């Protein structure tokens, strides 16, 4: 499936400092429609911060972000309207523990999109079915496994019919035997043509599904290219050292 030419996400000169520490040092990145961009890098390299700047969970210090033609960082932009069109999946799931799986998915449908109870319920059930959890609609997060919880979180993002979905280490908090179910859902999403930016260490998934892999280190994109190149023949010494380290473990 060839990614379209239109960039959905266009980032220029993005900088972010926490106090005196600069974690993003001028990032340029274009993500085209239907593209899956995979971001790797050591912890503290700024990859999560990069994702979190895209929907302004972190406020960038400088630079510009264009999402679907909208200037995300403009003070005149309704950030809530942008956010409901960018899905986000978190490392620690962040499901609402006091609501059922269906309740988790329905909340934004009801309160943001102002849909009626019956319609929101139907959409929620369809979204849960899409991640293979049709039978868990009435379960609370505490009654679900980590893998199931993360799939509910993906359903919560998908229910809003986002233009793109950001994944922030979606499988890092999971027991190894539960990783597969989440990756399977992500693979299906990819096949359905969803635009995705994925921060993760799942190299096998990256090789199989990514259009492009970015290697970040110390707040910069050091190298980018197709998975075969980044994993097989990295050009930079820093990339090579990182890949070797990951493969060894």
């Amino acid at each position: 499936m060839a990614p379209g030419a239109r960039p959905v996400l266009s980032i220029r000169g993005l900088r972010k400092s926490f106090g005196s520490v600069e974690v993003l040092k001028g990032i340029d990145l274009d993500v085209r429609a239907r593209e899956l961009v995979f971001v790797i890098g050591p912890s503290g390299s700024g990859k999560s911060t990069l994702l979190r700047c895209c929907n302004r969970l972190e406020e960038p210090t400088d630079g510009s972000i264009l999402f679907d033609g909208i200037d995300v960082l403009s003070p005149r932009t309704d950030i809530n309207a942008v956010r409901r069109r960018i899905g986000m999946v978190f490392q620690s799931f962040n499901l609402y523990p006091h609501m059922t799986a269906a309740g988790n998915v329905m909340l934004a449908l009801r309160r943001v999109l102002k849909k009626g109870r019956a319609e929101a319920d139907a959409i929620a059930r369809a979204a849960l079915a899409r991640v293979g959890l049709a039978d868990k609609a009435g379960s609370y997060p505490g009654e679900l496994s980590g893998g199931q919880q993360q799939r509910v979180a993906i359903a919560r993002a998908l229910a809003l019919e986002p233009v793109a979905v950001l994944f922030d280490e979606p499988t890092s908090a999971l027991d190894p035997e539960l990783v597969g179910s989440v990756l399977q859902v992500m693979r299906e999403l990819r096949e359905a043509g969803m635009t995705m930016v994925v921060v993760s260490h799942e190299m096998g998934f990256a090789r199989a599904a990514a259009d492009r892999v970015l290697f970040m280190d110390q707040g910069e994109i050091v190298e980018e290219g197709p998975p075969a190149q980044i994993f097989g023949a990295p050009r930079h010494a820093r990339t090579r050292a990182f890949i070797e380290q990951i493969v060894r473990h």
Partner: protein
Amino acid sequence: MLQTFFDLDIMRAALPYLLQGLWTTLLLVALVVPLGLAGGLIVALLSTSRRRSVRWPLVVYVDFFRAFPPLVLLIFIYAGLPFAGLELGAFASVAIGFFLNTSSYYGEILRAGIESVARGQMEAARSTGLTKAQAMAWVVLPQAVRNVLPDLVGNTLEVAKLTSLASVVALPELLFAARSAQSLTFNPSPIVLAALIYFVLLWPFVRLLSRLEHRTLAGR
């Protein structure tokens, strides 16, 4: 001895008067608890503000009124402020004094509750397009209240007992009624009766609190 403290004739005679006092006590509780909770909620929500200029005065407010003995506060408002030309009367003095006291306690409890909710909850809600107020109302506050429910019930119990302080400014609530009956009859039985009424009124909440605390500990 038993005759002195449990004089049934005197108790029977004082009962209607005490029930009238109980009614005033219940009115006070019904006024002070919701107002204190509402004030406390505002204090707690503003305390989570990113602006120091908003947080700072609230810290001072909460600390000040938590350190101020409520009896002293009440007497100051009732008997002190008239010297500044501000005469509030018994009921208003009690309402204002108790509001200042209870809203700072409820505020501190709710603030702790809000802070006990993982930051990712707010972020997840905001990432789906909910406003900060919506995320607070639907995601953070329900969890916050559940996390501090024993403290909220415990504080409400304290507020109910606190209302007996209103007797010192001659507000005819339960304790004041009992004191009046006692001085009229030269017998302590009305005080004993008032104590019994307080007990019957509050004991169910004490039991509820114990169960909540037990559940919280077991849930950890």
